[in-house]
């Protein structure tokens, strides 16, 4: 039975590259991702290794998922986990630069557009709830707290939308520079 270790760590939705780099760093120290839930990563102890981690965001039906994962498997990528439509892949990279699951800017941009699409929907829903709901007066102290939490969610979601848009512009700018 291999040694396991749990690490609690939060990444924001626009930090998937940073998250992947951290998982690569953990693998270099001999801790290989086994499973994860929101904010909690379980690692398995082993040999230190150079491993590329990459995240993709995609909502898939069952049949699509088989086809999708089959392609990655054929290309030598192991799917480690899926959490909220984020798919975590890894591939051993004993030498040279870390491989990527995307090979051009257009498809990298498409990924962030898919993320943006879902964020905008959630943001819109939150704004609608915040602006239309009428909480009963009897709840007065609790009401203020609920509203505050909702406002916080809207601000965080709005910030996430801006960060993802900035990420898309950065990718396009880097591509133009070559």
């Amino acid at each position, binding site marked *: 039975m291999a040694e396991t270790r749990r690490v609690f760590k939060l990444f924001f939705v626009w930090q998937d590259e940073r998250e992947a780099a951290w998982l690569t760093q953990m693998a270099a120290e001999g801790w290989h991702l086994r499973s994860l839930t929101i904010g909690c990563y379980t690692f398995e102890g082993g040999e230190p290794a150079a491993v590329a981690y990459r995240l993709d965001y995609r909502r898939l039906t069952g049949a699509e998922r088989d*086809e999708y994962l089959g392609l990655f498997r054929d290309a030598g990528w192991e799917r480690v986990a899926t959490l909220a439509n984020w798919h975590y892949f890894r591939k051993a990279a004993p030498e040279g630069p870390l491989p990527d*699951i995307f090979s051009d800017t257009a498809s990298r941009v498409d990924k962030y557009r898919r993320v943006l699409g879902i964020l905008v929907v959630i943001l819109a829903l939150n704004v609608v709830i915040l602006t239309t709901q009428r909480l009963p007066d009897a709840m007065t102290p609790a009401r203020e707290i609920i509203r505050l939490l909702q406002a916080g969610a809207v601000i965080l979601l709005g910030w996430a939308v801006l960060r993802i848009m900035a990420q898309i512009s950065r990718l396009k700018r880097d591509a133009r520079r070559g």
Partner: protein
Amino acid sequence: MANLDSQARRHLPLTEATFAILVALAEPRHGYGIMQAVAQADGGGIRLGPGTLYGALTKLLEGGLIARAGDSNTGDERRKLYVLTPLGRRVVRLESERLDRMARLGRQIIDGWEEDHG
């Protein structure tokens, strides 16, 4: 025919990856077959990431440039096959002609430079 042409033109220009995938699908291939064909293509192959390939296949299926062509069973592995549709063939033809025109234009100028500089 004119209708197919105007339909095909809406898909131009193509990214390098998309063009290479379409060319590979002149005959039915599965995803892995596409990756291999694209990597080994004459005139410098390109390495295709699976995320890029999956995204391109999804879009090409939606746009009707490629269609499913059953399954291939090799060993215990079953893989989906894809192949160009008449629309996809037209897109490859139009894009090739467009690239040809651009290359000719460029070569005319380059030839002139070579004369200037010996």
